[in-house]
């Protein structure tokens, strides 16, 4: 639950993790777990959020080399949750429909990172421009009070 009654939104509580090495992938998912815990997530929700972050952060390393993951508590009316933004200025994704397909990979992966992150979270949005970069925004809400 929220510590000392502070509102879950606000710049101060957002956490930014620069992604440039595979150790940063681990840092990003630990940061995500910590923020999600502070919002009130428990058990398998925490694992699902960390797993999604792991996939998105690894994509940055693999395909864009560097970027960042921003985790913030969010609220909307009476519900609270967590938002993860994974962004980079890498090569971008030419065909998003294809990239979102289970099993599609241009590398040596399982092709499950993007579609899996969508299933693990409640909301998923992706924007990408070839030569400009990629931004993925995912959200998950706690299951009420």
């Amino acid at each position, binding site marked *: 639950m929220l510590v000392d009654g502070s509102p879950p939104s606000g710049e101060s509580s957002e956490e930014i993790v620069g992604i440039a090495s*595979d*150790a940063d*992938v*681990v840092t990003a*998912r*630990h940061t995500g*777990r910590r923020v999600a815990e502070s919002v009130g997530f428990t*058990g*398998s929700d*925490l*694992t*699902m959020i*960390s*797993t999604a972050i*792991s*996939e998105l952060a*690894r994509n940055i390393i693999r395909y864009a080399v560097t970027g960042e993951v921003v985790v913030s508590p969010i609220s909307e009316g009476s519900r609270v949750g967590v938002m993860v933004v994974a962004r980079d200025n890498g090569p971008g994704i030419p065909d998003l429909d294809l990239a979102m397909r*289970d099993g599609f990979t241009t590398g040596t*992966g*399982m092709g*499950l*990172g993007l*579609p*899996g992150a969508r*299933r*693990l979270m409640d909301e998923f949005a992706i924007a990408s421009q070839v030569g400009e970069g990629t931004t993925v925004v995912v959200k998950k809400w706690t299951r009420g009070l």
Partner: protein
Amino acid sequence: MAVPILKQGKYLIASIQSALTDSDMVSLREDLMEQVGRYRSRGIIIDVTALDVMDSFASRSLRNIAYMTKLRGAETVLVGIQAEVAYAMVQLGTNLEEVNTALDLEEGLAFLDQLT
């Protein structure tokens, strides 16, 4: 952080102690392949109890380890997948069906004893 590998008779036991980076996972594969050859091990137990997350890279790596070491004559059992981790793996869609699993170390050893 490197994963300690313990030789116990004809088995190797690798106990993952903390969250692993991708390069730790690659080292684990190399170490197990080397030790299977050196000790002529017949079975491998990989204890993943301490893993916070089993993402697609970890799943693929563990599947590859199981297959590569099998080609060298050793059977691998994955033990200690936590309930929350199993739940997230299903949502993610990773498939570890062809990898042997057991609830914990004791069950894993019993499984290998039956096989080898």
